């Protein structure tokens, strides 16, 4: 089972489950303690310059974007970003806080490529390693499993493999060639959920994306929640807990925390806002103006909600589909 081929990219984070274990044991409590705090406190306390950072989910869906705005306000820099959270990545790139990017896909789906990504990468400001969507999710999954790698049959035969940091080996059981993906342990993970209790037990409606995997792959984890619920509600349906308290460092109450993205069953995405942002993002100066207004120009999520306006948010609530 020798290594037949290796991707040329740098590993932006070390795939060592034993280092992760030791860190967790030293730094995280196993006790159920009240972790409710403001976004300012959570980001100040748990996000550091140089952190490897990942966010969940994808595109404009259940995006932990209120937390991302706070990271930008606090100017946490030299971040090594991974994941598929397009809104968050575009914002962080726009604020020039990113050094390296494990990229799978950054674009605005139907609205096309990201001007911000183009400027950041084509200028050489941000280093990249390429992966597929599946590969990135599996890298978090490997970390969540507490193992240094995971074998898959994807990315084989491609330049995506070549410009990743994966390796190809022969399976010692079947002789098949398989691609080994290194686990991606994050310093800090951000996830936005429908409901959480003050200890950090979380429930999500609809698709779960890679919340299970990313929450377990993160040394430090901040969750923002549309609603804070009583622990009795958690205990009534323990099978609905997707993120248990012991993974979580901070719980932030963040209504409309995914705006301008959507939150299934709660509010639809703000098409008008997004289109404006995407138009403005084509120009660096206008991008800066957008950040000035919607990120730096507000102190927190409360002020952001006021800026957007409840009328508009109520309309988005009325547009979302039911079950």
């Amino acid at each position, binding site marked *: 089972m020798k290594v037949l081929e290796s991707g040329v990219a740098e590993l932006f984070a070390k795939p060592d489950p034993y280092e992760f274990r030791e860190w967790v044991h030293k730094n995280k409590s196993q006790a159920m303690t009240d972790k409710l705090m403001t976004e300012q406190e959570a980001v100040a306390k748990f996000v550091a310059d140089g952190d490897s950072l990942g966010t969940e*989910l*994808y*595109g*404009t*869906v*259940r995006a932990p974007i209120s937390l991302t705005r706070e990271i930008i306000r606090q100017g946490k820099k030299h971040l090594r970003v991974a994941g598929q959270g397009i809104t968050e990545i575009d914002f962080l790139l726009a604020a020039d806080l990113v050094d390296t990017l494990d*990229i*799978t*896909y*950054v*674009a605005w*789906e*139907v609205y096309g*490529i*990201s001007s911000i*990504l*183009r400027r950041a*990468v*084509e*200028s*050489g400001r941000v*280093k*990249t390693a*390429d*992966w*597929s*969507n*599946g*590969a990135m*999710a*599996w890298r978090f999954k490997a970390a969540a499993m507490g193992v240094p790698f995971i074998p*898959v*049959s*994807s*990315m*084989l*035969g*491609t*330049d*995506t493999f070549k*410009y990743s940091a994966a390796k*190809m080996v022969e399976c010692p059981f079947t002789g*098949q*060639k*398989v*691609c080994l993906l290194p686990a991606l342990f994050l310093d800090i993970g951000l996830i936005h959920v429908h409901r959480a209790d003050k200890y950090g037990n979380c429930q999500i409606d*609809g*698709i*779960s*994306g*890679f*919340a*299970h995997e990313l929450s377990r792959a993160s040394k430090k984890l901040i969750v923002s929640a549309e609603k804070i619920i009583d622990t009795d509600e958690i205990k009534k349906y323990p099978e609905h807990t997707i993120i248990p308290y012991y993974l979580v460092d901070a719980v932030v109450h963040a209504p409309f925390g995914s705006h301008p993205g*959507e939150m*299934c*069953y709660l509010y*639809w*995405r703000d*098409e008008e806002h997004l289109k404006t942002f995407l138009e403005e993002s084509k120009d660096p100066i206008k991008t800066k103006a957008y950040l000035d207004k919607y990120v730096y120009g507000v102190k927190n999520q409360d002020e952001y909600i006021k800026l957007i306006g409840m009328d508009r948010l109520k309309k988005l609530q009325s547009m979302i*589909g039911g079950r």
Partner: protein
Amino acid sequence: MAEYNETEFLICIASRLMADKTTAFIGTGIPMLAASLAKKMHAPNLVPAFEFGGVGASLQKLPLGVGDSRTFHKAVLAAGICDMMETSARGFIEYGFLGGAQIDMFGNLNTTVIGAKYWPPKVRLPGSGGANEVASFCWKTIAIMRQHDKRRFVKKLDFLTTPGYLTGPGSREAAGLPPNTGPYRVVSNLGLMGFDEKTKQMTLLATHPGIKVEQVLENTEFEMLVADNVTENKPPTTEELRILREQVDPDKLYI
């Protein structure tokens, strides 16, 4: 005959490729419209699968992304990305739809960078997204190329993001990819292509109304094979157009 635009035609051609009672990995854009149209036309029991977790959605309303709430509205499953990708790895997804900035004669695709250098690149494109899993695991993949020209149908990709038949017959298997998979069809604004069974080279099967075989070849940088019997694709029917416009995309988000 009703008038229609190129996008509408592409959607109809892609839609007709979707068989009833099968599963298909649906990406953003034309595949979503095609799947929605197919479900309302000939394939009511088509099962759309979206990579972030939705399977069997009604597609009553058009999703705007592969993870939005419409991808699992009245679905039978709302899981996560790993389950979906692994389901395709285990052989449960029949069709996959792909797109790209460049395609070569073996159906390999580029969605990563334009230019000779990986980093810093001349033009940075989105990246693989889920395309590697779709192209590696689905039994039949269908590429949709909105613009058929020599810059897009190229001899050599700037970057091989997503595997087609790689360097030709047997090369997918040699690379370790699952047997009996690979590109099945390519739909462009000029015609419909397949792949030669023996050489795995892209082969023109049908042209769109008014398009000549030569036009397709002239707009292709590589040597495109031509089927013995090139047919003409039927234009969208009145019924297809009506459903597409009134039911699939009434808000004109795409068409």
